[in-house]
């Protein structure tokens, strides 16, 4: 995989993160509107509680890939740091492959989950009866991008191991 694919995945991850940030700011405004409407207009909107949950789902899952791109997902590195860089590289190769496999499966089942939600036209059991397919979209999209980012990291480790380089990937990442 060339630098082009890597850049594209990085940009997609950032775009998803930016979208998550927009949802974050949006839900702040909506929650405030709810409070104002309750205390000032004496007429609750009854929107924020439900949409707040959806917003958190969106923020979390759309943020996954962005967080992974910047290597902010927390992991324990003080043990692998003791190994020789090459051994550490091989271990990272295995753990990244496992991580990728898990996220890829999560992405796969989330697409099924979404397809099911579409097929059965599932709705929330609130007054709004929101079609759940819209907020649920964050799951497969987020997991798929996350898997792509991990794949890019994986390819990089393979390339580094081949070339005999000690990539950053083998060193500690601190949150």
């Amino acid at each position, binding site marked *: 995989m060339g630098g082009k694919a890597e850049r594209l995945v990085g940009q997609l991850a950032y775009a998803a*993160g930016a979208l*998550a*940030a*927009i949802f*974050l*700011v949006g*839900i*702040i405004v909506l*929650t*405030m509107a*709810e*409070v104002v409407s309750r*205390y000032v207009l004496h007429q609750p909107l009854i929107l*924020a*509680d*439900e949409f*707040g*949950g*959806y*917003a*958190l*789902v969106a*923020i*979390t*899952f*759309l*943020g*996954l890939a*962005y*967080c*992974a791109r910047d290597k*902010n*997902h*927390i*992991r*324990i*590195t003080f*043990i*692998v740091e003791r190994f020789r860089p090459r051994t550490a590289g091989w*271990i990272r190769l295995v*753990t990244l492959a*496992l*991580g990728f*496999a*898990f*996220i890829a*499966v*999560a992405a796969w*089942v*989330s697409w*099924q*989950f*979404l397809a*099911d939600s579409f097929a059965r036209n599932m709705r929330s059991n609130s007054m709004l009866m929101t079609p759940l397919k819209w*907020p*649920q979209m964050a*799951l497969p999209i987020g*997991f798929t991008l996350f898997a792509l980012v991990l794949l890019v990291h994986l390819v990089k480790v393979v390339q580094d191991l081949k070339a005999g380089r000690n990539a950053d990937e083998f060193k500690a990442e*601190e*949150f």
Partner: protein
Amino acid sequence: MSPELSTTLLMGGLLVLLAFGLEIGAAMGLTAAFGLVFVVDKPLVQMAWTAWESLNSFTLLAMPLFVFMGAVFSGSGAVHLLFSALDKWLGWLPGGLASVVVAANGVFGAISGSSVAAAATFSMIAYPEMEKRRYDPELSLGAIAVGGTLSVLVPPSLILIVYGSWENVSVARLFAAAMIPGVILMLLLMLSVIVMVKLKPSLAPPSASATWGERIAAIKDMLPWLVVIVIVMGSIFGGLMTPTEASALGAIMALGIAWYYGRLSYRMVREAALSAVKVTAMIGFIIFAARLLSFVFQDLGATVKLSGLVLELGLSKYWVMLFIVILYLILGMFFDSMAMMLLTLSFVMPVITKLGYDPVWWGVTFVLLAEIGLVTPPFGLNLFTMHAVLPKFSVLYIARASLPFLAVMLLMIWILIFFPEIALWLPRRLY
């Protein structure tokens, strides 16, 4: 395979994955997925269900909002002003700036719910000033590292938000319960600074006293903090707003304060929102994975069995608590606090409640235990954060500097165990 064996094997596999440096969330999720398919025989689509249900929560939404609010506050330059204002008021104490760091952390903690953010902020703001005035680095670093732990204890607190939503305990009650222990811990830490400097005067330069004129002038720099804290916490404790609503209000007020100080910009808001997204994604991923794992363990009956086993030992509740405290002190050396909590909660919680401990009280006590883990090597996030800001000090050096203050935190845990009313009195008064 017997459930006991399966549980042990899954746990063992998880520990291997974690030790080899797989991302914590992925390690937990992978173990859970394995258990789902090969042990409890449930369809994999459960993963998507759990992902959806574990994060579709208005209560948990308080987490990104408080992170955002803290980030905007930090970016507004108000922390710097708070620090120098508190210096005017408390600088006369022996070991002046170290006490100021602790007090400033207590106040910052009422805005921010993350210890790492506090450690980073004060390493940048307080350390250079302390170096300039020739404080012993051991005292400075210890105060910053351990002072940072006040940020999580003093509400709002990210750990308490996640704990409350996981265990269905009211977050507002948890915040109320953390209030008095937070203030006591702050005073104890300041007291220990004074004692340390009295015992070893070379730790700090002689402290200088500010004039009353300077003090009065400093009040206006503390005012924005007071206003935001009183309104945000007041609306939660007064029952006017849920913690999530209050966090949205706090975020708006933080933006207002950034504007007041002339620091409000598109770039600043964007960075604050993006950093909140990252923290949320990281923690949310672990929450999802932990939910999935606890689904498997609960299906296996592992959690009930283990708690039954512990209770059968017939130990008094204090002995069991001692055991749990030691367990967490050890785990805290290797885990980050959120992961540690989510990994152990489904096993520990049944024991805690069956022994008659209050879940609200336990939330607060756990925060203290988790906080100790943030400053104990080899894995202590506050240590890493400070090392990243001040690379000339090694992680171990910062850990050693924090050691004397850890005794104070252990004392605080001891106080909470024997006088639980310290935590439980306020929520009982309010609700």
